């Protein structure tokens, strides 16, 4: 395609000519553009010397500055720890109750406890302590073992495992039915004399109390309010609980409910933080 003699002299074409008169003109990119291109290539190599880049067999070149992203991350973390340190130091020295009444510290826990709660508690109890199917709500003021800060801390530390005997073999079917409708009616303030009588006769009060409001020492449920530990408070739900009990190993259909202990998994300070965090959901006493 290239002719020795260019038939179109002085035109600044590249010498590539097709079909007699179609030729390619030489229009190079602007000079500054070419300078930028070479500068960016130079930058590539310079960057590789300043920062870790070129791979070796088991490693990579370290770079002149010695910078690494993990190093930067650790520096950032150290900076964060520095900001947290005064708070963490205070938390170490104080009891959970003192933390709760300290305005600054409780704000700190409200912000930082979220991660702890998310990692350890939210899987069962839900974000914000909303509870889940058959897992207790933490945002309400109905507590099986008591809702003051010390008790909450103790619950997290040692865990809880309540027991209710399965009554399926001890009671007749119609007795279970009467008791169930009595219990459901309690939270609606319905009168049920037969149920009340049976509640006394069968010694339900031994655990749930004479007023059916539960005993925090035993962790027995308050039957008079509208909050249900298992199910949604239908008669069938209650029948199930009475018949098969809770954590009763003799009954295969028993309701399983166990709060694991966290003293082996979390530090004392983290447990204090969690107790304060849970208390601040709005149900703490």
């Amino acid at each position, binding site marked *: 395609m290239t002719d020795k003699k260019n038939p179109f002299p002085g035109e600044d074409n590249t010498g590539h000519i097709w079909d007699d008169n179609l030729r390619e003109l030489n229009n190079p990119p602007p000079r500054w553009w070419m300078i930028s291109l070479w500068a960016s290539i130079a930058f590539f190599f310079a960057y590789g010397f300043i920062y870790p880049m070129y791979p070796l067999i088991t490693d990579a070149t370290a770079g002149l500055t010695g910078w690494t992203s993990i190093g930067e991350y650790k520096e950032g973390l150290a900076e964060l720890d520095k900001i947290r340190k005064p708070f963490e130091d205070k938390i170490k020295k104080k009891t959970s109750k003192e933390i709760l009444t300290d305005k600054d510290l409780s704000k700190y826990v409200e912000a930082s406890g979220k991660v702890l709660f998310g990692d350890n508690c939210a899987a069962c109890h*839900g974000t914000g302590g909303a509870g889940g199917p058959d897992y207790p709500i933490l945002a309400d003021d109905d507590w099986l073992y008591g809702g003051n800060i010390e008790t909450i801390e103790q619950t997290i530390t040692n865990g809880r495992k309540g027991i209710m005997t399965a009554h399926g073999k001890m009671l007749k079917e119609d007795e279970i039915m009467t008791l169930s409708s009595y219990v459901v009616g309690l939270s609606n303030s319905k009168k049920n004399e037969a149920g009340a009588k049976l509640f006394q006769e069968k010694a339900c009060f031994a655990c749930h109390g004479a007023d059916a409001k539960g005993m925090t020492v035993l962790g027995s449920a308050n039957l008079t309010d509208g909050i249900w530990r298992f199910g949604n408070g239908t008669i069938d739900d209650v029948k199930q609980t009475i018949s098969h009990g809770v954590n009763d190993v003799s009954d295969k259909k028993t309701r399983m409910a166990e709060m694991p202990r966290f003293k082996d998994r979390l530090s004392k300070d983290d447990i204090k933080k969690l107790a304060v965090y849970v208390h601040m959901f709005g149900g703490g006493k």
Partner: protein
Amino acid sequence: MTKITDNNKTIEEIYADVHEVHINTGEQKIFTKRIAGKFRKLKWLASSIWLLFFFGSYLRWGDRQAVLFDIPNRQFHIFELTILPQDFWILALLLLFFAILLAVVTALAGRVYCGFFCFQTIWTDIFTLIETKIEGNPSQQKKLANASFSFKKFYKLSLKYFLWLIISIFTGISFVAWFYDVYILWSDVFLLNLGTASFTTIALFTVGTFILAGFMREQTCFWLCPYARIQAVMVDKNSIVPSYDVLRGEPRGRLKKGDLVEGNGHCIECKQCIAVCPTGVDIRAGQQEGCIMCALCIDACDEIMQKIGKPTGLIKYDSWEGIMGHDEVPILKRARFWVYNLVLLLSIFGIIYGLSSQDALELKVLHARQPLYVLQSDGSIQNRYTLKILNKKTKDIYVDVRVDSDILKDLKIKGEIKNIKAEAGRVTSTTVFVSTDKKNLTQKSTDIKFSIIEVNTKKTATEMMKSFRKSIFLGKVN
């Protein structure tokens, strides 16, 4: 010139056209001749607005800088006003205002911004002024550029670069001064105590100014600036822009014995319009993207016309329709004029509304998402809210929180609600719980209103700062 499009060109004609188009991609340095005249004066006047950029930051307002964009503290101070991040939509409207102002001015009168106000044009102008003072007129400049190295050349170049550098550094410092107290900044500069951000910004601006105004010049307008390209769709046949009167000027030809040749137009091929052009384009080729519409060629041409005894205005501010002797579409009949001005008006009203409705105290309410509501053992329903109290004043104040509703009369509120310290210029957040008996609820979602009221016994009820915010109370209805 009269043919705008021609689809019947032969290949050779197309090649000939291409050959005529000369594009300077930086291989050719433009030596600009400086010329006095009406538009030169106008240009100085317009450029002087940049003195504000250099010296405006030294103004004080009370105990602080009058205009300070305090990024670390997220506060913009403009005289009496303090704008916090929450009010940033006002800034967006301000940007919209200027963008549309640019569009409307360009539609009517071409690239007025490019020619008279743009920093690239003005800094280049100052740099070429220094170049001319040191190295002489364009032919002397060319001679010096081609001369072999000598002490004289070294001295002249060093002096030029030194002055450019001083201006560049001063530009960088003046820019940073809007974001950092200017007096502290100068003491930092002299004590070599600049922070990383300040130092980097000043260095970038210094290098940028030095290269862009010193070396890239018209190349910046040609290849870097997006506005140069955008303007092509903003200017139309009715826009009044510096134009060559082609009907009067053509056919062009040199003077013979001091007189126009019979049959020739008024253009005498003196090429003064090209000589004074800062971007080195030929206005006689018609409107083109390289033209920044600075109107200096009008000054140059008028001077020549006076010398040869012809009326001035061979190059003048006129529209394409005007040059061609057609009637222009009146401004009021152009759709663009109305659309642009409508947007302008809307943004102005938005800004005025934003500035006048700025409350010193603002309340935001976030309803907890999980759980949405909680049944309590006494049969009440409880909702959790996070209140964000923004105090835009420069002093801390104390507020009380209240909640009320037209429908739910017995709302109970607990949590931190009394004497909350709202820190100056900051958002203070607090958590509150609102509850009511389940029986009172008639609907899933009920409107409620939170209000915060300043606690101050010295003030009367009307003087106390307050703010309110609507929210909802959620619950289950049986």
